[in-house]
């Protein structure tokens, strides 16, 4: 369970271009549920997702994960929490070009130093599960949008995280692929994962599998919290 209390995020603090993206949000995200953060562009959804996923620190306020405060942790411990707890699917997938599908999937596990053959086997199994096992040796730049997203999901799941975070996951997909993505999300929920998504795509926020919809507007929660 993730809890945010009076969280604020200010960019360029003290400078003429100071901008407050999150203006005091308190929120509780339950485990094993699918939560969607909905809102227009510039509403602060992505910033909020970054704060929840330990990609950024709040300017003020407190974030806890299963009762453990995260906001004050030193960078090293925060990275460790991020690696073990969260898996990320970015809007543009952010796969590393020039590497193969398999190498991209294995990448988040490198700092933990697992046995290579076991890691490779695990990555291959994940790719098989998402129907792209045959493309393990392909360079990622050769993949279609849907395939690239599935690789990004496999990469997010390689460390077996509790929480999967996806930012605008269907922004670069057509309706058919978007529905396929939501089917994957449903599967992950069944496996007990917590899924947090941002989207303004009705295919995502109106999907029956979604447990909770939170509307974000101007850095504040407009509804659903």
């Amino acid at each position, binding site marked *: 369970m993730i809890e945010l209390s009076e969280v604020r995020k200010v960019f360029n603090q003290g400078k003429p271009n100071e901008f407050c993206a999150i203006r005091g949000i308190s929120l509780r995200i339950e485990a094993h549920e699918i939560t969607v953060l909905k809102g227009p562009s510039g509403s602060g959804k992505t910033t909020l997702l*970054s704060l929840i996923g330990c990609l950024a*620190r709040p300017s003020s306020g407190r974030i806890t994960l299963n009762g453990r405060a995260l906001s004050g942790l030193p960078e090293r411990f925060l990275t460790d929490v991020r690696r073990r707890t969260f898996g990320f699917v970015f809007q543009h997938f952010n796969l590393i*070009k020039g590497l193969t599908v398999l190498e991209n999937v294995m*990448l988040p596990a490198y*700092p933990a*130093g697992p046995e290579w053959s076991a890691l490779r086997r695990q990555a291959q199994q994940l790719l098989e599960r998402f129907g792209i096992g045959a493309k393990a040796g392909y360079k990622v730049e050769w993949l279609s949008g849907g395939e690239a997203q599935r690789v990004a999901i496999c990469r997010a799941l390689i460390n077996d995280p509790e929480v999967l975070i996806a930012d605008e996951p269907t922004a670069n997909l057509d309706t058919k692929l978007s529905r396929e993505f939501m089917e994957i999300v449903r599967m992950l929920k069944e496996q007990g994962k917590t899924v947090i998504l941002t989207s303004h795509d009705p295919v995502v926020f109106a999907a029956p599998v979604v447990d909770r919809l939170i509307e974000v507007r101007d850095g504040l929660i407009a509804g659903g919290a």
Partner: protein
Amino acid sequence: MLTFIRRQKYLIDYTLSSLLRRKTKNLGLLLVYTLIVFLLASVMLYTHALQREAGIILAESPELIVQRMVAGRHDLVPAEYLEALRGIRGVRAAQGRLWGYYYDPVVKANYTLLVPADRALQRGEIVVGAGVARTHNMGRGDYLTLRAADGKAMPLRVADVLHHESELVSADLILLGEADYREFFRIDAGLYTDLALQVRNPREVRTIAEKVTRLFPDTRPILREEILRTYDSIFNWRQGIVVVLLSGAILAFAIFAWDKASGLSAEEKREIGILKAIGWETSDVIRMKFWEGAVISLSAFLGGYLLAYLHVFYGAAMLFEPVLKGWAVLYPAFRPVPFIDGLQVATLFFLTVFPYTAATIVPVWRAAIMDPDAVMR
């Protein structure tokens, strides 16, 4: 421990694949870097080899040479000086030396004619250096005709060709007997070109030199260590000229390397952000980039140094030979004895590998300590 080793293996593996992904950039950098190390190392190795060779040769020369000066010019020394010099306390032996220069207009080269102290030569016989033999394409039994001081041609039979351990000083040498020498240059008996002194205690050389000057104010004593110092200065000066000539290239490389190493491309910054976002620690990213810089600079250093070694010791330093060795018609075939000086290697390493690696780390450190949320945007 096993996990730590595996982690390093993953990092190195990723580093190598990262280098291969930017093949063109890294290969270009490696080539230019190797070339610079090669040029610098060649100059250093060759100059050092020349200095060392000069040291080896001079080790056998007398500790003190006494020349007579007339009107500020080097003049012949009367044999009477020898007896007086032998009387100075601390002088073990004193010999008169006979030597001179001869310009050969046929091949436009200068020879050094010398009467050897340790070798008796028959009348009309000479021993020539390898350079002289090469220039005239002659060997044992052939005749070399030189024009004596009185204008008469003097045919001399080659009894032997010198195979000195260092051709540097023997290339232009012609050894001949005392009688031939005196006849050739028309120098009377009882006169020498200069005098060579050997001393009992090498630490007393300076004191003996002072005594010589007091005894014969018209003489100039030359110490072996002074000759060595002059050789060092000459070679250092020549090394300096080459380094100045190369400085343009070095500066261009420094700017090129600094630009490549210190500026991260948008693609590289994005990659650092992704790696951090998916769970890599700042130290992992820095270590990975450190390995990247280290692989390039170490490969360039080893490659450049190895090429320079081959160039200097097996290719006779063909690129720098004329500048570093001096200008001459009779080029000695100089093959220096392969030698590596630890301090020299360390200096070159410090001047090339260290700045490059440091230049790569600073911008990576700056990029890696930022929050990874930039990749979300």
